[in-house]
């Protein structure tokens, strides 16, 4: 079967990329134009105007001659068009042309900037350059992609990954974007860890700063205060373990019990994930703070003095559990659903009782989900910034320390970078520990073979504690959200309890005038920007995340570990650092996108992609490889297999990735606060402005409105993506 495609002389996709390369070079404006989506340049002097000219025109009139060598790389593939794929020359020419073209494009972009050569040694080598260039635009972008995919075609033709063009191109593409938008900015930022006060770099200066007592001190064992590193570690481990257990409890109730109101429970578990930052923290203060409802009534009841017990570890822990349990739940529900009932039935046929079945069959098969849920909880807690800020008291953690090292009174970028290194060390440690625990066992349960049956209910010994935990936690969540809803309709939260709708009116007023509808509320601007950016970012995030997960679970290639590490990297670093790193990296050519909406979309994609990757990996490691193999044996190529076999089985993971990235785009704050601009302000940064200004009512009203918007969006996504039907299972709830 495969030989047919080998007989074909030229792959149509290859022709497409060759044409794309020429279009990018000869037709599209090479450098950035104002507004990515604005096509004003078409009527404004293009193609001869210097600002809008394509590379070919610039070179043709003798400008920017360093762009010329790329012509060679564009011309070379034309020579092999008629050749067979098996011809060694075909592969060699494509690899050489694509590789050279891409390398040259990157090198000239980095080497020549706004002020000519960007590095001292280039000037010494070639003399002063009296020309300069700006940020790359459409032309450069399209041409770069063309070079990249010519290169991967060449690699595939040489026989890498069984000559699979889709897989090599996907690997190449993901590596390229992750390098540009994750490694590049983070490297720029981390270089600052070695920066000295006088602007140079020193490796020796790093160590005393790294082993500082404020980071690693152990005084808390003897009554003092511990370093931030230990604080963060303790908190993150607690949050990781507890969110995993809570998430598992919810997942078990939803899949393995006769509980009636599953939808309600499901909605409840999603609530905290769609809550903008600060709001949960404020509600917790009003409940458990020194003057909080719960604290004061308990103090009165037991005759003890009210204390500030909530500030510090207890407060952050409660807030983070509320906020991150849903993430663990979203990861675990797919895995718990995916465990094949046939295996559990087999165990029961072999006379295992329900407890033995759970302990020896169901639980071990859930391990990938548990490990991934823990990892996400751990990393989220490490990177969380809003909750420690509100509830931290004197319990300092790495993320807030990093933020204030950058924006605080000291402006110590190098300290921020060092703290970021510590934080990164912890998250990577957790990552490797997780791999170690999972080991090399097989967790495959969805095989495509006969798979009828339903999940057995939980053993009683497990069910009662699980019910109790779920009931308590649900009640607590409801109380917190009751407080939030209440807070949005009172005059002044905690002081004046007169009911009012004025906060909603201020934020979301719409007036009807002669000119038509006027959005006069103060929140509309940031609201629409946020909606647009979240809608753009979500599908892109899910796509990149799932393709990456597919590559990581289904393909083997050199450097896979490093690749996996890279995709997790942006998630492990707190948003604040990403924000500053993005400004440092993308404020100057070759990629100049600060102050645009694009940088917000990109930062969301690469910050949230790891959730898509993790959810995808967890689900995919349950899908038997024989499914792919049968598809391949029947003559489908790997793209068709991915689209028709794997994707439909991945619906829970797709949903998780879509929901998560949409929601995070509307609720994330730490990276955003650096990247927003006058034209593109986001809801969260607006809300924080209100909180800073004592305007709690408006902040909470806006947050409440956002919660409802996100609920609607999540419901809509669920409808669009649809449910996966694995086997002929029905859940218990639907039987009753």
């Amino acid at each position, binding site marked *: 079967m495969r030989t047919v495609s080998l007989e074909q002389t030229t792959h149509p996709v290859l022709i497409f990329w060759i044409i794309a390369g020429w279009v990018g070079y000869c037709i599209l404006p090479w450098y950035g134009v104002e507004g990515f989506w604005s096509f004003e340049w078409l009527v404004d002097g293009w193609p001869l105007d210097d600002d809008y000219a394509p590379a070919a025109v610039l070179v043709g009139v003798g400008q920017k001659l360093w762009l010329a060598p790329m012509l060679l790389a564009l011309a070379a593939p034309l020579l092999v068009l008629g050749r067979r794929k098996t011809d060694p020359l075909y592969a060699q020419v494509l690899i050489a042309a694509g590789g050279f073209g891409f390398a040259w494009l990157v090198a000239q972009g980095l080497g020549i900037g706004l002020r000519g050569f960007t590095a001292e040694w280039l000037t010494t080598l070639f003399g002063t350059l009296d020309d300069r260039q700006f940020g790359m635009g459409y032309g450069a972008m399209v041409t770069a992609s063309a070079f990249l995919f010519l290169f991967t075609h060449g690699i595939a033709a040489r026989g890498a990954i069984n000559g699979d063009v889709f897989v090599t191109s996907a690997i190449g593409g993901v590596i390229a974007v992750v390098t540009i938008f994750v490694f590049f900015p983070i490297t720029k930022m981390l270089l600052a860890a070695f920066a000295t006060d006088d602007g140079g770099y020193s490796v020796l200066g790093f160590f005393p700063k790294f082993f500082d007592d404020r980071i690693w001190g152990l005084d808390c064992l003897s009554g*003092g205060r511990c370093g931030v590193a230990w604080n963060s570690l303790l908190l993150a481990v607690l949050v990781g373990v507890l969110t995993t257990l809570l998430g598992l409890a919810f997942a078990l109730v939803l899949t393995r019990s006769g509980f009636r109101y599953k939808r309600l429970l499901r909605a409840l578990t999603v609530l905290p994930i769609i809550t903008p930052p600060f709001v949960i923290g404020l509600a917790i203060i009003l409940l458990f703070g020194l003057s909080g409802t719960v604290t004061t009534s308990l103090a009165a009841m037991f005759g003890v003095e009210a204390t500030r017990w909530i500030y510090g570890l207890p407060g952050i822990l409660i807030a983070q559990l509320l906020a991150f349990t849903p993430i663990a739940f979203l990861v675990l529900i797919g895995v718990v659903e995916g465990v094949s009932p046939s295996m559990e039935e087999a165990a029961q046929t072999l006379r295992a009782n329900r407890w033995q079945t759970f302990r020896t069959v169901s639980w071990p098969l859930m391990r990938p989900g548990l490990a991934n849920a823990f990892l996400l909880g751990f990393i989220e807690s490490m990177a969380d910034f809003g909750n420690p800020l509100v509830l931290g008291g004197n319990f300092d953690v790495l993320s807030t320390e990093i933020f204030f090292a950058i924006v605080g*009174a000291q402006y110590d970028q190098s300290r921020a970078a060092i703290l970021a290194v510590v934080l990164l060390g912890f998250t990577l440690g957790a990552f490797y520990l997780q791999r170690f625990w999972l080991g090399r066992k097989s967790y495959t349960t969805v095989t495509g073979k006969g798979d009828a049956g339903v999940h057995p209910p939980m053993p009683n010994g497990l069910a009662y504690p699980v019910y109790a935990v779920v009931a308590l936690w649900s009640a607590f969540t409801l109380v917190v959200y009751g407080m939030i809803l209440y807070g949005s309709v009172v005059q002044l939260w905690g002081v004046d309890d007169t009911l009012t709708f004025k906060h909603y009116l201020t934020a979301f007023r719409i007036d009807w005038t002669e000119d038509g509808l006027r959005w006069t509320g103060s929140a509309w601007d940031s609201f629409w920007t946020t909606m647009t950016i979240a809608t753009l970012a979500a599908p892109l995030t899910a796509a990149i995340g799932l393709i990456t997960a597919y590559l990581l679970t289904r393909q083997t290639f050199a450097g896979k570990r490093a690749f996996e590490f890279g995709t997790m990297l942006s998630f492990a670093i707190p948003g604040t650092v990403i924000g500053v790193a993005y400004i440092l990296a993308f404020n100057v050519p070759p990629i100049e996108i600060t102050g645009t909406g694009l940088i917000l979309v990109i930062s969301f994609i690469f910050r949230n992609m790891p959730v898509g990757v993790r959810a995808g990996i967890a689900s995919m490691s349950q899908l038997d490889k024989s499914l792919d193999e049968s598809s391949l044996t029947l003559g489908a190529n790997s793209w068709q297999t991915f689209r028709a076999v794997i994707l439909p089985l991945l619906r829970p993971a797709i949903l998780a990735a879509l929901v998560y990235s949409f929601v995070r785009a509307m609720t994330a704050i730490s990276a955003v606060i650096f990247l927003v601009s006058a034209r593109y302000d986001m809801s969260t940064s607006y809300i924080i402005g209100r909180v800073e200004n004592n305007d709690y009512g408006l902040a909470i009203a806006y947050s409440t409105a956002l919660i409802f918007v996100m609920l609607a969006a999540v419901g809509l996504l669920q409808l669009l993506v649809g449910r996966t039907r694995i086997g002929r299972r029905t859940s218990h709830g639907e039987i009753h």
Partner: protein
Amino acid sequence: MMKRTFAAALTSATALSGTAALADLNLYCSAQEEWCQIMEKSFEEATGIDVAMTRKSSGETFAQIQAEASNPKGDVWWGGTGDPHLQAAEEDLTEPYVSPMRDQLHPWAIAQAESAGDKTIGIYSGALGFGYNSEMLEKAGLPAPACWEDLTKPEYKGMVQMANPNSSGTAYTTLASMVQMFGEDGGFDYMKRLHANINQYTKSGSAPIKAAGQGETLIGIVFMHDAVATTVAGFPVVTVAPCEGTGYEIGSMSIIKGARNMDEAKAFYDWALSKEAQDLALQVNAFQVMSNVGATKSDKAPDLASIKLIDYDFKKYGSSDERKRLLSKWDTEVSTLPQ
């Protein structure tokens, strides 16, 4: 070299409309949201110049200007405490400019500009003080504090909140004021005694007074105008001007070096120093004292004349060396003490 860089940046901005924003003036604003908005709208109305405004705290704005130094995106930076403005001037991130409006200003505003080589100027000033929650005070049956010294009394143990000087400019101003008022040894001795009563060092400068408003602490050490604003917002907070005297901040304005719209930036600069522009503060409950001599004063605002202001040395205590020295001394000698 520097000059060429600058010229290149300028021409790049005009030649390539590249990624330059569409507005005629890019304003970085570090005051509160409404104040920023009313400044933006009123300037647009007064001059017809289209403004794109971004609001961020002064620390964040400084970090951004620093990061954007090689390719500035902003034109003028208005508002926010003076130290980051002074530091920006020190690091040559801002442009010197002598406004024709200068003769209408209070001497403290001019003095600050001169100390920074005309790279920044005072637009408002606010004195340090503290506020307490009157309902809590009554319930606990405690006397009202009136002086800095009162805050160290044992009856307020665990009831005073201030920001961490490492993260907040307000708290650094407190530390520097104590050092200037009581001498370096006396100042640190005071900070140590105060430390015994502190329940939390917050990250953000105005957080202590918000906590006091919500009843999460009895006393918060903040700028007095923040305390007044909390009262006006409806919280039971009483503002105190300490009897020993106090330090103050000067909210400042600077033009960013390499600004793409230099003329518009200067037009904004001049306008922002006028009486009309400074009177806008009252409409948004900003209770600072404005730098224009003719600006209208609010009856709720703390009257600077009745407050004993110390002769605050902005140049010395705003410099990064002195700041680093005091902060590391505070870190090792004060923050590590048991409470």
